[in-house]
């Protein structure tokens, strides 16, 4: 099988199944009985336009309790359950583990010559009829190679995504993707094969192993059509008990690595293109509890005292001066301008490439700055509605695009003697 080494037993099971129209795969371990019952219910609700399709529902299972593939009870013969033995190396903390399992599902789908593969998070939050319908619709009816979700997240949720991943990804690769790293997404058969192959490429270059399907879809030729669907799905906070620095180091480090690997591509991308979106945005999510930003500001101030020397290696004098000004502001006046934050992330991406200092150390030094941005952002959007907050993020992303020439010039001529 492309990219992933499965057990002999799994390969044989796949051979027995032969092929499928749609593989729906769970990227992480689940309780077999519960998932079967749930899946049977959901597939029963998919509606008449799906009845002629052959579905395989797959999930990783430990070797001990991995039963053979079987037809779903009381279901049309078109639904087959496929608990597969998780590949040996499909492990890792947090997103590394998720990505490995996502690759396993994609690889299975490629092996089964599926027309579409829907990857679901292990919490099964998206295992409902409507999300499956939308994801399948975008791949099968709209010929999308890749379909990413737009989660109906509350305005303080997913801020690593909103504050770094989404705007950086958009500025670099020119596609307006709201969640470039997602638990749930769908891919066409061709894209499955491509993503499965990508795994070996990343590992060859010492990659972190995170799967960035959007990067693969935009940087390889021919380019893939990407779509987005609104999913009224809420995943619990996915830090897995790790501290923020570790999460940032893993995710942002991986993104920086992709940035370095794809430099020849993104340097020729200008502006950004919208991507089609299907499904309606659900009602505004609950406002959530007010967030106390003082600890974040304290971390920022502490960082400014302790990490000043590190920041000096990475950031140009104007940025350092702006940060110094920020430290003098009263908490209620604290506001980190979009341009400043975008420039900081760009400078860290460059320092990551140049190995200005140890990469772990470098990413650690980003954490207090990130908390400063979070505090600033939360204070700003606390008075905004969900819709207005989304529009604010759109404006924020535009700033990253406008500032991209700064990254380009520094990347191409990484002279420390700059303003």
């Amino acid at each position, binding site marked *: 099988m492309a990219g992933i080494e499965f057990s002999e037993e799994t390969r044989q099971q796949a051979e027995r199944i032969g092929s499928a129209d749609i593989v729906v795969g769970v990227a992480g371990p689940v309780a077999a009985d519960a998932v079967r019952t749930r899946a049977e219910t959901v597939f029963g609700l998919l509606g008449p336009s799906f009845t002629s399709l052959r579905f395989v529902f797959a999930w990783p299972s430990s070797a001990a309790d991995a039963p053979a593939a079987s037809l779903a009870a009381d279901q049309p013969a078109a639904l087959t359950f496929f608990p597969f033995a998780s590949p040996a190396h499909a492990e890792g903390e947090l997103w590394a583990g998720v990505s490995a399992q996502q690759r396993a599902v994609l690889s299975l789908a490629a092996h089964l010559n599926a027309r579409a593969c829907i990857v679901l998070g292990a919490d099964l939050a998206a295992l409902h009829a409507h999300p499956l319908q939308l994801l399948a619709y975008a791949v099968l009816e709209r010929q999308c190679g890749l379909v990413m979700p737009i989660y109906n997240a509350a305005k303080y949720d997913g801020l690593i995504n909103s504050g770094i991943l989404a705007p950086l990804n958009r500025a670099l690769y020119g596609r307006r993707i709201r969640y470039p790293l997602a638990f749930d997404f769908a891919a066409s058969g061709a894209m499955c094969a491509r993503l499965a192959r990508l795994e070996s490429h990343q590992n060859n270059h010492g990659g972190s192993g995170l799967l960035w399907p959007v990067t693969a879809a935009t940087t390889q030729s021919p380019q893939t*059509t990407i779509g987005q669907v609104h999913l009224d799905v809420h995943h619990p906070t996915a830090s897995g008990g790790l501290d923020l620095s570790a999460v940032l180091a893993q995710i942002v480090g991986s993104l920086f690595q992709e940035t370095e690997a794809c430099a020849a591509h993104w*340097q*020729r991308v200008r*502006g950004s293109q*919208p991507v089609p979106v299907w499904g309606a945005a659900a009602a505004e999510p609950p406002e959530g509890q007010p967030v106390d930003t003082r600890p974040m500001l304290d971390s920022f101030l502490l960082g400014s005292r302790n990490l000043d020397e590190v920041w000096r290696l990475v950031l140009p004098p104007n940025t350092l001066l702006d940060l110094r000004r920020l430290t003098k502001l009263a908490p209620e006046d604290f506001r980190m301008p979009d341009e400043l934050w975008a420039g900081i992330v760009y400078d860290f991406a460059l320092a990551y490439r140049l190995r200005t200092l140890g990469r772990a150390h470098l990413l650690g030094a980003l954490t207090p700055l990130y908390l400063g941005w979070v505090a600033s952002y939360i204070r700003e959007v606390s008075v905004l509605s969900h819709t207005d907050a989304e529009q604010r993020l759109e404006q924020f992303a*535009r700033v990253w695009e406008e500032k991209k*020439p700064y990254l380009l010039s520094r990347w191409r001529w990484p*002279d420390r003697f700059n303003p």
Partner: protein
Amino acid sequence: MPELQTIVRKPGSNSDPLWYKDAILYEVSVKAFQDSNNDGVGDFPGLMQRLDYLQDLGVTCLWLLPFFPSPLRDDGYDISDYMSVHPSYGTLEDFQRFLEAAHDRGLQVMIELVINHSSDQHPWFQRARHAPAGSPERNFYVWSDTDQKYKDARIIFTDTEKSNWTWDPVAQAYYWHRFFSHQPDLNYDNPEVLEEVLSVMRYWLDMGVDALRIDAIPYLVERDGTNCENLPETHEIIKKIRAAIDEGYAGRMVLAEANQWPTDVRPYFGNGDECHMAFHFPLMPRLYMGLRQEDRLPITDIMAQTPAIPDNCQWGLFLRNHDELTLEMVSDDERDYMYLAYSADPRMRINIGIRRRLAPLLDNNRRRIELLSSILFSFPGTPILYYGDELGMGDNIYLGDRNGVRTPMQWTPDRNAGFSRCNPAKLYSPVIMDPVWGYEAINVEAQQNDPSSLLNWMRNMIALRKLFQVFGRGTLRFLDSSNRKVLAYVRQYQEQTVLCVANLSRFAQPVQLDLSELDGMTPVEMLGYVEFPLITKQPYALTLGPYGFLWLELQPAMNTVEMTASASGEESFYVESENDWQAVLSADGAMKLEALLPAYLQRQRWFGSKSRSILHAKVDDCLLFDENRSALVWVTVEYDTGEPELWLLCLAMSFGADADALRESAPQQVLAVVGSAAISGVLHDGMLRAGAPAALLEVLARGEELHTRHAVLRGLPGAALPGLRGAQPLTTRPAGAEQSNSSAIFGDRLIMKLFRRQQPGANPDVEIGRFLTETAKFANIPPFAGSIEYRRNGHEPATLALLQGLVANEGDGWQWTLEELDRFYESASFSRSVPSALAAAPADTIPAQAREYAGMFLEAAATLGRRTAEMHLALASGRNADFAPQIPRPQDLESLRAGLSAHAARAFDALKSSLSRLPDDAVEQAALTLSRRGALLGKFAALTQLGEVGQWTRIHGDYHLGQVLRSRGDFVILDFEGEPARSLEERRAKHSPLKDVAGMLRSFSYGAFAALTHYIARRPAELGQLEPWARLWESAVSAEFLRAWRETAGQSPIVPAAREHFDALLEIYMLDKALYELLYELNNRPAWIRIPLHGILSLRLHPGKN
């Protein structure tokens, strides 16, 4: 010899079969790079230690000089065992470890295949000299009983060898050698030799070696009566070598060392079936020559002599290598010059060349090093760096042979330059130690710590080059410029276009480049990503500092990129029903719509701001109508500079077969895909859906008021509407010719114009149309039937739509005129007489020839003149402030003069700077025009002295043949909107009606010459004959038009009372119009420049005189 079966065949390390086209080669001597065991000689373990450095530098392929067992009498090019490693450099296992480590870092490895000759110590030679003459063993080499064979072959090492033959006392025969006498040439007439060579080659390729440099390739085979170079038999051997590689290996490369002229090297590429690469030897000395002479000619000249090569082949480019700077491929004069310029000390010379490194050759001038390197990195080919040149290492001319450029690599300021920890006396070569070039001054460690070092510069340049495949794969086109100190060229590959400009001079240089073919592209300086001014059809001016160079990536206008992407129709809205506008215009949908709009607007003919860079578009207001099947959407468009604009969109959704038809017939008007699992359709321009304009007609006719979020929409029916509309239902269809507005036609009775650009204030088209129809009762316009206004709180109303009666016609005046002129030229071409000049005839007299050939059009011109004057009289009949005529004040004339003069100055300046690129037949006229600049400008100066110039009134404002319809032997005048690019205030300003008159006269001139251009395209020989006829037609038609206008206008106060004032003012407006045309043609159609030039030169130059 190792057992071949112990080698496992490894694949090539790069999956791209053309990897060598994008490569950066780094030539390295194992001996000189790093000594790991402190024996004074570099080795493979040492080289491995330095791989991180090479990876960091960014090079992608390492070219290893010979590392095989050898007596080392020619720096390893005298090989005594092809399948092992010289013990000084390590073991075969060391090499394999090195190879794996290099591949792990993404580096390819090229080794030497020295197969023209071996060392005389090679067992093959020792066996041969002892074998009987004629035996297969003896025949491994080339033997002769005489030294007179192959006499036409030159001696290459002239400093050391007197003959290519050397007597061997053991063999009792002469053996052939093209190089040193200890390097006997292998005999390729013996098939066993090639078999052995192929075995050697497979041995290394099986190990994973990526590339082979075939040394001294032109000399493989010898034939009497030839110079023994480049023989067909040699190419046969190379083809066999290549076939063996292609048969067994993927992703490998063979590089030919053939120090020959480009045309002689070309055969070494074969049809892509010999060598993948070959060095471009003659370019190298010419780069140095061009630099020293501050003249691009030596470089462009040798590139002009460089033939095209097969697509899978590549030139290898270099500034320096391990040998001397060879001067074999230059003329005697050039060689003398190079010796004088670059080898002041005779010790710097060897054989036919100069044994110096890059930096000493360039007097250690950093800017010169950077300049030549920039050319190396941007010329078509794969650049090859010689170790140490990235630091600017020096040489030692006091060492023998070419050893002065083969000294140890300078890593640190420590002992032995960090190359070895041995006793300095033990080093294979002394390190460079002098104060300027010594290792204490120039070394890797120091330069790594110096952000401004040459090493860091090289690293950045290499990284930049690697980002753009155009450098390795693109075409090359030199740009001509009058300044030969500047070398400029365009590289192009797929969507990548790069302009490179290099100043070969030690002083700053200006240059003007003709980039008209790249009109509309934006140059972006590649090192700093700095945007330069947009390229136009005008010469592009650049200034370069001493030895400066620019790499400019030429990017298409941003909007073009977006347009291409979104034209694919990928964007879509998920709608659940056929009028689910919520999905499109709700907050989320609107955001997506806004993202699509910049590209959509750029595709629309009516969008008049295409030349501006859109920052973003924002939905400002909207209104559903047409039973919720269509929507009016007001969009604010913001640009990178200047004021934002408000534009009106009419949108509709169509589904099923209707959608398919729209996709087919009007793809540019499709904005997005809409649909769900149940329905599939498109969102498109609503004016294509009959229901939308029909619904707007109802709003207008009923005088309805509709409320949007911010404004009120109100129908204002005209008095003539009931009669024009009739009682019967009317079918609706879009009007074909869409320009700055969109129109729909109702039956054969009405036409509605939807104004796309929304500006608060009275629209002149509506205002004048209503006035002429309802107040002045002027019949020769489409009758005004009503309008729809859009009134925002606190703003003047903007006009959304204008409704007029539809006029039956035979086409617009421009098309009709061209057709008439075609017939005129047809008749004239049969005429044997030459037309007399109108100017010679009495004033206002039409020559008989004109009446004979263009009589019908003369009548039409008179009618048009009459109608034009009637229109002006009607416009002057108004009494309210908007229409009442006024006598211009002195300050009005002064303001007009200043505006016209400034405009004229711009036109003259543009003409002057474009002179060199004008068509040959226009240059003389252009020069003549420029010579009259002062006199022509003087015409405007006279304006303020005219005094009485007649009353000023509302006028048409954009009057030409395209603005009239030919209708039943008469003319109907259209479109009172004025020039759309101007503000409403400017368009509503009052002027002399002579401005319209001048516009029409210039239009006649354009008609005459446009039709002539079209006519002679089929019969170019008739140009000389027909040109006087064109002038005759123009003169006669203009005279007739003017006569009728004056006659009709009579003594009206809008006509300047004095004839000389009339003529002077008319000429001023005609000059202004012709200068406007001049600018337009310079920027858009230089081939048409003669038309306005002729118009300008036809004007009289003495203001005030008739």
